């Protein structure tokens, strides 16, 4: 047996090396970079201090960017839950033949290049875009509604591309639900709506949670969609980092924003899963009392 003791590590080595080179190294270097400083004349200076963090955290400009990032990510996550969970439930109840086709449609957004997809949204959302033409044409709106270059537009486009992750996560969780429990609830007198909220949703909370975490972290760090839909004016963390690195050339400042984004996303994810765990425990306790 001892002869084989090292084998698992050996087998993991290639993947670990890849992770080390491709992920850990750049992350560590970015973290180190964020402690350096920048001078317009001399470029990056190898000093070690927290002044970049201090300037980001105290500057209202960056505070607004972070706030917008979190609001957009939270709203995207919320819409993905509200739309994606029932969607996954309906899909799982389709006949097998239609299910495959429907799943392909759901995954559609992921199969289209991000630039093409986002430019498509700009055509739809613009002042003279299809949506506004339809709204004014049907006299539902007197003047065009601003959608492009707004937070709303950003959320719409992000929900569109991120919803497959929610559907897939919930779909997987639904696979673990005994369909007979739904029939049991019906035979005991529940309507379909009650079945969904009282029997199905509580059983797929872990799936909703993991889907939500994926959607939230992807939305918070999204770059292309906010850059194209939000435009130059409405910046989020990812576009701000891009600007620092490639426009201002202040790499250390950009690195500190990047680090703050990573920390914020991880913190919120941990908090969210904590709250959700607490919730399910409380729901179980409430049921115990009923």
């Amino acid at each position, binding site marked *: 047996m001892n002869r084989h003791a090292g084998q698992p590590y050996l087998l993991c080595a290639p993947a670990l090396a890849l992770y080390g080179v491709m992920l850990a190294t750049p992350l560590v270097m970015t973290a180190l970079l964020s402690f350096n400083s920048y001078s317009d004349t001399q470029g990056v200076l190898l000093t070690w201090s927290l002044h970049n963090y201090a300037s980001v955290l105290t500057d209202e400009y960056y505070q607004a960017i972070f706030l917008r990032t979190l609001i957009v990510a939270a709203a995207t996550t919320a819409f993905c839950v509200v739309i994606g969970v029932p969607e996954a439930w309906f899909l799982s109840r389709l006949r097998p033949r239609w299910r495959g086709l429907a799943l392909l449609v759901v995954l559609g957004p992921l199969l289209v290049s991000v630039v093409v997809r986002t430019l498509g949204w700009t055509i739809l959302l613009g002042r003279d875009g299809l949506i506004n033409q339809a709204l004014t044409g049907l006299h539902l709106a007197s003047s065009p509604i601003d959608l492009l270059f707004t937070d709303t537009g950003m959320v719409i486009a992000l929900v569109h591309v991120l919803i497959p992750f929610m559907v897939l996560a919930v779909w997987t969780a639904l696979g673990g639900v005994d369909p*007979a429990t739904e029939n049991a609830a019906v*035979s*005991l007198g529940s309507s379909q709506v*009650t079945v969904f909220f009282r029997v199905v949703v*509580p059983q797929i909370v872990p799936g909703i949670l993991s889907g939500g975490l994926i959607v939230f972290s992807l939305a918070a760090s999204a770059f292309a969609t906010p850059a194209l839909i939000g435009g130059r004016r409405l910046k989020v963390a990812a576009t701000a980092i891009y600007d620092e690195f490639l426009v201002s050339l202040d790499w250390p400042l950009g690195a500190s924003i990047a680090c703050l984004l990573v920390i914020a996303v991880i913190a919120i994810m941990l908090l969210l899963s904590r709250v959700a765990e607490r919730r399910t425990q409380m729901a179980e306790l409430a*049921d115990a009392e009923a």
Partner: protein
Amino acid sequence: MSFLELRNLQCRYGRTIAVEDVSLQVERGEFVSLLGPSGCGKTTTLQMIAGFVEPTRGSIDLDGSDLGRIAPNRRGVGIVFQSYALFPHMTVAGNVAFGLEMRRVSRSDRAARVARALEQVHLGHLAQRYPRQLSGGQQQRVAIARALVIEPRLLLLDEPMSNLDAKLREDMQIELRRLQRELAITTVMVTHDQNEAMAMSDRIAVMRAGRIVQVDTPQSAYEHPADDFASNFLGKSNNVAGRASRGVIELPGGVRAEAHTTLDGAVLCSVRPEKIRVTDPGRGKLAGTIRSRMFLGNHWLLQVASEVGDLLVYQQNTGAAPPEEGQVVGLDWHKDSLRVLPSDGADA
């Protein structure tokens, strides 16, 4: 008119027919089993009664009203599922209370009725546990309590014992039967287990390929099977093809046997293995050679080669040694034990 009446039920999924034509009457308080191999349509029939599957033809009446017009969640039918289908995120008490909650029973009333239902299945002390913390047998009791607490007009059991081990299954059969009698609740059970069907039911409906072959009390279904299939699905049977004329059957090898029958022409003769007696060689109606013998505790299963083919014989374990393998014996049976069935040629 019967309490539950299924009339010419049919169910197709696309081109496949799950249930061809099923008609059945169940009286109030009666326990009827749908017995058949997998794929015979028994579960689909149950699901049509529950309302989970729409019949493509036919009607279901319960207590004089047409169930087809009533939504599945308003039928007032209690169901025990094969997988039990307990709600994993609710406690035992929560599971049992669910149906009462849906019926808007007041909180205090609910607690009393849940407690009573759990007492009935001897699970009062486990009310606050979650299903995953219970054994299979306990989970099943919860499922029964959950179905009974709503005081259903009809109880449907879908292979309720198939996930229990043999000993527990027997206990549950006795207990479920006791509950059913006590509450006088009309019950339809689906099973592929002939012993379970015979032990629990007032009547058995033997199903095959989407049709009911025979409906009878367990005893007469066993003693007077309607056809070849029923005789083999309900217990074991020695079925030999022959020709009947005026109460005498001509069997292969020139053997002739008397029987009570009005049939003429090609028939099947059926004798239960326990109805055949092993006698001394040269006596009895037939000579045979023991091919193999198997010890089954309370009896021996003998395989005997004879002129009419291989026959199975049960011999009671009286303590005496059974005939050796290779030994020549005589076989005898009473005329009344010989059943003559129409030859349908399907399983020839």
